[in-house]
């Protein structure tokens, strides 16, 4: 199955092996005609109206602003509805360095997002700590706190790269299974079970 989005030719994508593996894993046992069609309909809707959370800690956030402005214009893709409240957003673009003090805040934002929710680790800092690898106060990659769907390298990534990353995300959403089968929510539960939030004593 050739998964693509926004009329981009399948060959133009960089890592098709990953998505093919994902499809094989999810649909290995075959799909029911009715359920499969329903899945397709739901995923079509979801993958075309991704609403980002307005979340930026540093430099990458400014490129995200450029992405929203007229030149790169993410409104072409249906992503321009940047929400300030996590309750209304579909995904977090972790744009910038995450430090120790920010870690609980980011985790709480993630927990507040309504299902289905996705995360893009945007920029070298969010991917791995980046230039601040030797710092005492930087979290070495936001995947230590929240599960990440797409990793986007660059310092900061160009707006074009951000478009590509969100398109990769929408491609991933297109093959998701909503009805039956093990979908990504199970993986998410596993992650959250492995990364529990300690009890808070107020």
């Amino acid at each position, binding site marked *: 199955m050739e998964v693509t989005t926004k009329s981009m030719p399948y060959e133009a994508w960089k890592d098709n092996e990953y998505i093919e593996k994902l499809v094989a894993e999810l649909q290995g046992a075959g799909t029911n005609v009715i359920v499969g069609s329903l899945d397709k309909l739901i995923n079509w809707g979801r993958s075309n109206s991704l609403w980002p959370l307005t979340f930026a800690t540093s*430099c990458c956030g400014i*490129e995200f*602003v*450029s992405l929203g402005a007229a030149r790169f214009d993410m409104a072409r893709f249906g992503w321009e509805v940047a929400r300030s409240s996590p309750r209304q957003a579909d995904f977090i673009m972790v744009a910038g360095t995450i430090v120790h003090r920010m870690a609980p*805040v980011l985790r709480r934002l993630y927990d507040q997002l309504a299902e289905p929710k996705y995360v893009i680790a945007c920029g070298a800092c969010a991917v791995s700590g980046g230039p601040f690898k030797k710092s005492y106060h*930087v979290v070495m990659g936001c995947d230590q706190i929240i599960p990440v769907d797409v990793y986007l390298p660059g310092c900061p990534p160009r707006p074009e790269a951000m478009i590509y990353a969100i398109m990769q995300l929408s491609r991933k959403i297109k093959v998701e299974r909503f009805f039956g089968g093990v979908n990504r929510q199970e993986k998410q539960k596993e992650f959250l079970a492995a990364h529990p939030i300690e009890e808070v004593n107020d």
Partner: protein
Amino acid sequence: MATIQETITRLFPDATIEQNPIAQVSVPAQQWHKLAYELRHNPELDFDFLVTIVGMDWADKMGCIYYLTSTKTNAHLSVKVTTADRENPSIDSVSHLWAIATIFEREVYDFFGIIFVGNPDMRRLFLSIDWKGYPLRKDYDENPEVNPVTTENERQTDFTTLYTRDAYGKLVAEEKRVFEPDDFVVNIGPQHPATHGVLRFRTAVDGETIKKIDVYMGYIHRGIEKICEKLTYPQTLHFMDRLDYFSAHPYHHCLCMTIEQAAGIEISRRAQVIRVLMDELSRIASHCLFIGTYCMDLGATTMLFYTLRVREQILDIMEKTCGARMTFNYECIGGVMQDLAPDFVDDVKALLDVIPGNIKEYNKIFTGNVIAKNRMEGVGRLSREDAIDWSITGPSGRASGWACDVRKTDPYSIYQELEFDEVVRTEGDAMARFKVRLDEITQSARIISQLIDNIPEGEYCVKVPKVLKLPVGSWFRTVEGCRGTFGIYLESDGNTKPYRLKIVPPCLPAAAVVDHITRGSKIADLITIGGSMDYIVPDMDR
């Protein structure tokens, strides 16, 4: 300058003064309280602008270096105060003399554990209350297991500590409340679209009126000063891009100048001109983005698209020459990384052609708009005295009538030869801060137009030894960043790595003063005032 030194030696016979090249006074810690008072209030000295407090750990002793400037005579002075006690180091606070010292001292306390006796708010600034150790001390344990990443909510406290000395000279800690017991405290941030990054205001309100704001920072504290101590001089440069990412060029310029001064490197005229051109281009780009985001904060989303049009044009020019849109890493020790792109001159001229029309358009759309006027005029007034007291430099300081442009007061590079006006307004409100930035775009364009036709031929980078070692000593340089006076304090022990590299950000005072300006105004004006100060959070947190 001689008279200042004479006055100090007359009043304090114990003080030693050395030229460093800024005069540095060293006094025993017991006399610092009295000296500080004289420096601030003695009419012969009158140092009213506290540039920064540099915390230091010299292994055998701890201490602070205070950089002071007189806004009347433009004289500079630094004072070195040390204490030999590593367990419980303490120095007298100067927060009653310079308002901004409250925050600067908290920063030193956070990094070095030096207690400032008499500071009313002795809490940590960037790190949490449970953080173990003081990171900038030389014996700090960096093992991540000591301070692990946690997803547990940070422990909060409503109390702060005031240290005083009793009759026997012992330290006495006294718990104080940050807010009154029955204050209604609203939490704004860190995830808020109008705080310009991850900054948090704990706001005590009385109805709609703001009573007090506790500015809570550190949500993007990356420990750049500590990392720099582990890297060689050329490696430290790229962090300057990631502080205030709009002032990447001026900040680079500052660190390069400091290192070049220390190493005795003379750079070519061509490199000087290229650096100034880049500084001014980034100033235009920065102010354009400020105008766009500020108007967006106030509800005029359209302006963002208009101002980003110019910014994108500048980014294209930069990209052709520097190879990146934002984190350029272009200036290097000895000059610049690579030569200008072949069509640089044509591109810049095309930019200069469109700028006047664009500014006219901004004025038409926004400045004269009645809603904008009502929201900005008379809001968040900051007097000249307060601006100096709180060290508010840059466009925000100039909007309060304080002529603090480093390009004019202490010209560096080739600024002395250039013709441009320092934009100063006297109203001190949000509208003035907005207009100063708008006018500075014109002045920057004027500087660029003087240089663009006379870029001298020559080498863009002089030869610099591969392994760069600086002589033992300390240096302090300031430049005019896009948001104010940016300074670098560099201390070398003769090695290839800096012993201490202190970054003096203009945005830290700009955020700290929010509490002072907003008191008594309506909570809706907090966004107007905060936006007009134009702070960049990674710059203040470092």
